[in-house]
């Protein structure tokens, strides 16, 4: 049942993450004990949600490849549903929205079949054309461009981008026979999430100069650079356990994930600002919606995937 080839290091890294989380929980508990007047409910919720998220993620990743593919398909479904619930949609387009959802099982079926060609063209070519045509056939031209544009952007971000995480699981053996699979997924997801934390911590501590004041006023140059360098260091450190990356390449990947994560984050921030909402949902207590959590991943997943595919697989 448990899928152990290539995942002994994966289990060790998960063990390390759980240890990190235990420390976070202990600190939260100490804070609540020592300062009972302060409100730490959001911090507590945040940490508790991390336990659940890492638990589900670890279960999906170490059980079997198919379970992991199913997990990412479901994640994609949640993200698309959240996005479609958030944006203005036209009543006439109900059927088109339904088609967008149908893109998900097929996209992940291509992954399951290791059918790279269909995986890479399904959303940007076939679904792109099909949703346009379906919408034209309905014949509602008022706000047509806005509707088709928002739907296709959503499909690319929530389905196509997220599905790259799943394809990392089924990449063939690389040069030097390093099994792909769960290690690569854990590597990019862990670095992306730690990058978020690192940018936040560096920004909180040393932040002075705003990077994108109009989109995300709390993001600073100091946070961005500190975060990227921290991520690059972690990338070099973790690479030998989880990936076939050389040191130099791992450093480059760290820079890409650091910057890509930042860009994904502020892109979803721009969407939220446009729509006038603070969070994208309320699914994850203390974090907000699913998109609030995977915003950075929508950029780092395809970037990391194509780096690996081009240079290693």
């Amino acid at each position, binding site marked *: 049942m448990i899928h152990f080839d290539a995942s002994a290091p994966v289990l060790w890294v998960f063990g390390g993450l759980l240890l990190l989380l235990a420390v976070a929980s202990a600190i939260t508990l100490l804070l609540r004990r020592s300062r009972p007047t302060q409100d730490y409910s959001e911090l507590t919720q945040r940490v508790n949600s991390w336990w659940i998220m890492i638990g589900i993620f670890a279960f999906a990743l170490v059980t079997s490849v198919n379970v992991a593919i199913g997990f990412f398909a479901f994640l994609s479904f949640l993200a698309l*549903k959240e996005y479609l619930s958030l944006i203005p949609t036209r*009543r006439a387009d*109900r059927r088109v929205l*339904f088609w967008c959802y149908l893109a998900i099982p097929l996209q992940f079926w291509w992954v399951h079949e290791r059918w790279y060609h269909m995986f890479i063209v399904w959303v940007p070519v076939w679904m792109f054309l099909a949703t346009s045509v379906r919408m034209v056939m309905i014949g509602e031209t008022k706000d047509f461009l806005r509707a088709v544009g928002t739907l296709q952007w959503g499909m690319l971000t929530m389905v196509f981008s997220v599905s790259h995480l799943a394809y990392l699981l089924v990449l063939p053996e690389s040069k030097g026979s390093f099994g792909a699979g769960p290690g690569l997924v854990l590597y990019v997801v862990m670095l992306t999430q730690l990058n978020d934390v690192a940018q936040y911590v560096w920004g909180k501590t040393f932040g002075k100069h705003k990077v994108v004041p109009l989109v995300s006023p709390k993001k600073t140059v100091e946070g961005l650079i500190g975060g990227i360098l921290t991520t690059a260091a972690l990338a070099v450190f973790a690479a030998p356990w989880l990936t076939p990356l050389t040191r130099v390449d791992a450093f480059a990947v760290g820079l890409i994930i650091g910057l890509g994560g930042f860009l994904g984050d502020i892109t979803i921030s721009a969407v939220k600002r446009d729509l006038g909402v603070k969070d994208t949902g309320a*699914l994850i207590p203390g974090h907000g919606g699913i998109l609030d959590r995977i915003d950075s991943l929508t950029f780092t997943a395809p970037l990391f995937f194509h780096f690996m595919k081009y240079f290693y697989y």
Partner: protein
Amino acid sequence: MGRLIRFIFFGVIARFIALIVLGLNVRHRERLPKAGPCIVVANHNSHLDTITLMTLLPLRLLAQVHPVAAADYFLRNRLLAWFALKVIGIVPINRERTRPDEDLLAPVRASLARGDILIFFPEGSRGEPEKLTDFKSGVARLAAEFPGVAVVPIFMHGLGKALPKGEAILVPFFIDVFVGEPILDITEREAFMNTLRARMDGLAAEGHFPAWQ
């Protein structure tokens, strides 16, 4: 047999639709009734409204929970009548009097007297999706007759998008469910209806709903 099917329907199928296919964002869950008798009042946009509301309450209350629904619509053929009465567990009422002295609310009174939790849609029908129409005042009469029974207003958004009247395909959306403060001991009809309307408008104003035209 009917009770078992009903338990499976709400314990498995309805919860799968409401929690996995759709997904609920419930605000003020603590205001939901913990025991009967009680009247839950909600806006009506979709057949999924009843299913969603019933999954909000724990399964141990299921035997007590009954939606009040139009007899002419839900009892129009035998299969639908079986499903409505045995599985959904509706309390059927006539919308129009067949005799001048008919008491339309009699079955509802009997149910409340038994200590049931009743679900009411005072708009009368699903109507235009995601639009609130005028409330009928049957609930006000019940509130006057049962002054100790709490009336809990619930405002829902999204189900009219997921499955509006006249559509057969369910399109998933996250659903907002806002539970209001219970209304108690208002026996005067006008005052009750104004309070109910104000509570509903207040709940609707808590949400941020994207345009849907």
